[in-house]
């Protein structure tokens, strides 16, 4: 082979022999394309050249605009050949080149000639090509032919016209809609695919007309559809009609259900499956409606065809999420699928079984899964681990075998994501099932003895530091922790040092031994490790065996009450412009804007296990702080405690749009009125808000900052400041009037007239409420935070909330009233629950941390009762929280 330019792989010699495209190169093929211009066409050669061009394009090669135009013009010459094979390749090539409008004109007449040819394949393909490349103008010229083609006796031609119609409907709906009669006729075609294409087009023409779709479904479900594909379409349209019409309230019957059920007995599996799937997806489907669908899906489970087994098990898996009982009948068939060659099928079968299994089948199931785990990919293993975690939370008594399973797979090979999923699951089981704690911690300890992932080691060490000291025999963990100091990299060693310190702080008998170990760490070759050891030796009171004091415990275990991203931003700002005075931790804004916490009880969301950290807050508080501190009148108010969300003071679409943001300082509040002028012919000047604070007795107005000018559609702010008693959460109602001078503006020049008219505009009232004095602030571990708070500060009382719409509504109302941060996903109330516990945390004005435990119960008459327990750093704040609830 004389192909010196081609790189030749030794092991590819065979291929070198047979690829006709070896060494093919665009430039050369474009040269070859000149044969298209020969007066005596060599049709075979021309076909070959087109094939080569198509090959190149298919391999990802591109043509420049000039090259494409040249090829296009050359290809159009080939219409003079009568060779049908060559013509087909010409059609393909034209579609591939997607010619521009002025190029299309060149081929239009040739294609229109082919559209009227006696040869079906010419007619069909010419229609497809022409409709593909044409724009609307040409379409009116060929519309007559297309309408004829739709009812052509050749199925190939009819399908070509119908499919083209489906595409054209997107761009030229008004034209395609005129073909309704022909399309309707084609729906009755004896050719399966024509029927399918016609039905698809007819539905798309009518899809915005509910009544027409309803009529279409009503008439066709009586049975004139033969094509399986068309039948599948009809099932989809029928489901749509069912969704929109709902259940008959008198009989409880669902319209068209009988049709769907009838389709379960169709001879084509595709149709049976489509109908079964449609039934399982009916809203509020009943057990009676489900049964026949489940039965056919169950039959599919033992099919010899993998696709059929897969489709069935996937659908049943979805049903098991909402109707586990309906699927239990399939459990035996499902179990045999655990050994299915297709691992997707096996995984779906296992996760379905884990959802539908009962307590007694857990052990048997675990045995089967253990064999299966070794030969599936990590991504499937993660799915299984997650399913096992939820199973364990469902059957806590079975924790032993499930925990064993998790620890076994933890020891086996696996990637980071998989190992993390297992570790997260163990952590969640430890948190939720007290009995599982000790064995779970030991499994984790064994895991870090041989763990290649630094991230997981440090996370486990941190967790161990919090949980280990509270176990019956904390000393047994020390060996595992200190081994890390000897064996691991610097990051893990530093973590281990911190964990040792936590044991030292909480377990007094261990203290002397911990000190010995920590002192050894002073000789570590890593700075961070030595620094930590030094720090802890000092904070724990070097050498003496005294009880660790509260401040130290707070330091070791307390969560940093500042979102890390806020701290990062503040530190960066500080470093960019270093000041004389040291960095002040209290200058970091604490507001967490977005609230995505670990939601381990919310069924739809994945538990996040170890890495339960608040998400990055937005920088709105920063922006407000900058804005306010730039106004000299407010500069003396000190540090901004909290800014509320904007409260709208005008209806939507009024002349002037105004909302207010309440900024709370220690002794002041500042109302920031964001105003927008929506009238192009006006400019407002000297804009102020006159505030009537007669229903807010503790507030005294101390200043306003008017807005000089408010042109059209340019939002701007005016401010009013009030003084209030220091540190007191004063509340009250404020009524507001917008006062301004209005000037006419010539919209064409944008210039305002010189003279203006004074005017007023009534705004809505708003209130300063107790929640304005509480910052939303999450804690990473509510239980720890609660236990570390002085029990003496706790205030407990019970409240009746009266009849409520639902438990969830009551919980939500209290969360809004208190304006605190819901922890651990407890703001989500599982549907149908009769009781619920909600955990809240926040910071009260004066930087006082507050934690709240709310226990709700609802009775048959929807009467809701609530027990409120508050702990805070200041017992008066605990009382204040009760007052908020009592007066709310």
């Amino acid at each position, binding site marked *: 082979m004389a192909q010196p330019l081609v790189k030749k792989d030794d092991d590819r010699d065979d291929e070198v022999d047979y690829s006709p495209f070896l060494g093919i190169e665009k430039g050369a093929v474009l040269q070859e394309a000149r044969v298209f211009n020969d007066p005596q066409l060599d049709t075979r050669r021309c*076909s070959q050249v087109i094939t080569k061009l198509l090959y190149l394009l298919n391999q990802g090669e591109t043509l420049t605009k000039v090259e494409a135009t040249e090829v296009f013009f050359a290809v159009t010459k080939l219409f003079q050949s009568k060779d049908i094979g060559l013509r087909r390749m010409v059609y393909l090539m034209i579609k591939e080149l997607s010619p521009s409008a002025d190029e299309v004109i060149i081929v239009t007449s040739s294609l229109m000639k082919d559209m009227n040819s006696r040869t079906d394949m010419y007619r069909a393909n010419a229609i497809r090509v022409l409709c593909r490349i044409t724009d609307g103008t040409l379409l009116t010229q060929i519309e007559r032919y297309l309408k004829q083609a739709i009812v052509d006796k050749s199925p190939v031609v009819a399908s070509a016209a119908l499919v083209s119609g489906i595409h054209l409907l997107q761009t030229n709906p008004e034209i395609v809609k005129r073909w309704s009669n022909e399309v309707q006729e084609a729906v009755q075609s004896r050719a399966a695919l024509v029927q399918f294409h016609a039905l698809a087009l007819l539905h798309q023409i009518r899809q915005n007309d509910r009544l027409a779709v309803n009529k279409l479904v009503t008439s066709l479900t009586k049975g004139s559809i033969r094509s399986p594909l068309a039948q599948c379409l009809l099932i989809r349209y029928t489901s749509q009609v069912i969704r929109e019409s709902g259940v008959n309230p008198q009989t409880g019957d669902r319209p068209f259900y009988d049709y769907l059920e009838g389709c379960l007995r169709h001879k084509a599996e595709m149709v049976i499956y489509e109908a079964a799937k449609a039934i399982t997806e009916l809203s509020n489907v009943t057990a009676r409606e489900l049964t026949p669908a489940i039965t056919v899906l169950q039959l599919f489970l033992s099919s010899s065809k993998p696709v059929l087994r897969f489709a069935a098990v996937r659908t049943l898996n979805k049903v098991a999420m909402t109707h586990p009982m309906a699927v239990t009948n399939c459990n035996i068939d499902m179990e045999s699928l655990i050994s299915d060659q297709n691992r997707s099928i096996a995984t779906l079968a296992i996760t379905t079984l884990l959802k539908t299994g009962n307590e007694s089948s857990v052990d048997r199931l675990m045995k089967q899964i253990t064999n299966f785990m070794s030969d599936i990919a990590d991504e499937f293993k993660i799915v299984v681990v997650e399913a096992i975690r939820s199973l364990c939370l469902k059957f806590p008594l079975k924790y032993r075998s499930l925990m064993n399973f998790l620890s076994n797979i933890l020891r086996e090979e696996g990637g980071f994501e998989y190992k993390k999923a297992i570790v997260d699951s163990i952590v969640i089981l430890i948190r939720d099932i007290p009995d599982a704690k000790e064995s779970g911690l030991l499994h984790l300890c064994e895991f870090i003895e041989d763990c290649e992932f630094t991230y997981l080691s440090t996370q486990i060490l941190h967790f161990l530091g919090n949980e280990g000291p509270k176990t019956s025999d904390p000393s047994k963990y020390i060996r595992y922790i200190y081994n890390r100091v000897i064996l691991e990299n610097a990051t893990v060693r530093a973590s281990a040092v911190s964990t040792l310190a936590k044991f030292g702080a909480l377990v007094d008998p261990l203290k002397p031994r911990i000190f010995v170990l920590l002192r050894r760490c002073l000789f570590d070759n890593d700075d961070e490790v030595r620094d930590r050891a030094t720090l802890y030796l000092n904070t724990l009171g070097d050498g003496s065996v005294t009880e660790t004091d509260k401040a130290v415990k707070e330091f070791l275990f307390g969560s940093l009450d500042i979102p890390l991203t806020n701290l990062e931003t503040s530190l960066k700002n500080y470093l960019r412009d270093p000041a004389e005075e040291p960095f002040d931790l209290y200058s970091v804004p604490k507001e967490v804007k977005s609230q995505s916490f670990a939601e381990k009880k919310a069924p739809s969301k994945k538990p996040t296990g170890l890495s339960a950290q608040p998400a990055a807050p937005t920088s709105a508080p920063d922006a407000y702080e900058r804005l306010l501190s730039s106004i000299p009148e407010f500069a003396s108010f000190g540090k901004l405690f909290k800014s509320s969300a904007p409260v709208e003071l005008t209806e939507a679409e009024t002349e002037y749009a105004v909302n207010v943001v309440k900024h709370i300082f220690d002794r002041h509040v500042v109302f920031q009125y964001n105003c927008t002028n929506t009238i192009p012919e006006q400019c407002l000047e000297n804009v102020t808000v006159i505030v009537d604070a007669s229903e807010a007795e503790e507030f005294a107005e101390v200043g306003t900052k008017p807005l000089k000018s408010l042109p059209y559609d340019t939002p701007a702010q005016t401010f009013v400041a009030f003084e209030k008693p220091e540190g007191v959460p004063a509340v009250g109602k404020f009524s507001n009037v917008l006062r301004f001078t209005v000037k006419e503006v010539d919209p064409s020049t944008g210039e305002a007239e010189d003279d203006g008219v004074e005017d007023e505009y009534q705004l809505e009232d708003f209130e300063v409420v107790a929640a304005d004095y509480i910052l939303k602030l999450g804690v990473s571990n509510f239980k720890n935070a609660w236990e570390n708070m002085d029990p003496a500060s706790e205030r407990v009382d019970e409240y009746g909330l009266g009849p409520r719409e639902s438990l969830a509504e009551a919980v939500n109302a209290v969360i809004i009233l208190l304006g605190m941060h819901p922890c651990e996903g407890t703001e989500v109330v599982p549907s149908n629950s009769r009781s619920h516990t909600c955990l809240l945390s926040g910071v009260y004005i004066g930087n006082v941390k507050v934690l709240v435990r709310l226990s709700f119960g609802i009775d048959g008459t929807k009467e809701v009762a609530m027990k409120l327990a508050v702990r805070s750093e200041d017992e008066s704040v605990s009382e204040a929280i009760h007052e908020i609830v009592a007066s709310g």
Partner: protein
Amino acid sequence: MHHEISGLSNDCPTVKNILLLDSEGKRVAVRYYSDDWPTNAAKLAYEKSVFTKTQKTNARAEAEIIILENRIVVYRFVQDLHFFVTGEDDENELMLATVLQGFFDGVTLVLRNNVDLREALENLDLILLCFDEIVDRGIVLETDGSIIAGKVASHSIDDNSPLSEQTISQALAAAREHLTRSLLR
């Protein structure tokens, strides 16, 4: 490579792509009908991922199926050729399998039962015509392998003779004969 994108409503079953790869995962011929893969690099990456994830499975006797990147892929291998059809995550899996079957049968017939890479490359024009007759911009055009092959086979009819009903049925008969022999073997 040119895209064939259509903005269809969700009700209509659609195919996202049809791929014919060789036993090393390299393109023989591919067609994309969705803008999920806007660049050639994205397409190549997808083909690589489909190929590696399915490589070790046995899809020779029966069509197999896998979920990949939230899409359904049905596939079948013969000799050194790998056939794939990709659809939406909630598409009817059996519909996709029917398209795959049509694709597979059609190619088998136009290659006169010699289904391997060499034959496929040597008859690439027929393979490309097969693609063209199976799906039109995402919409299933035909699923019956013998009809697909029949449409393509008209290619090999002699010059200048307009195709009559009879020649189509001859082509079909020849095609069916091939299919039957392959089943008996």
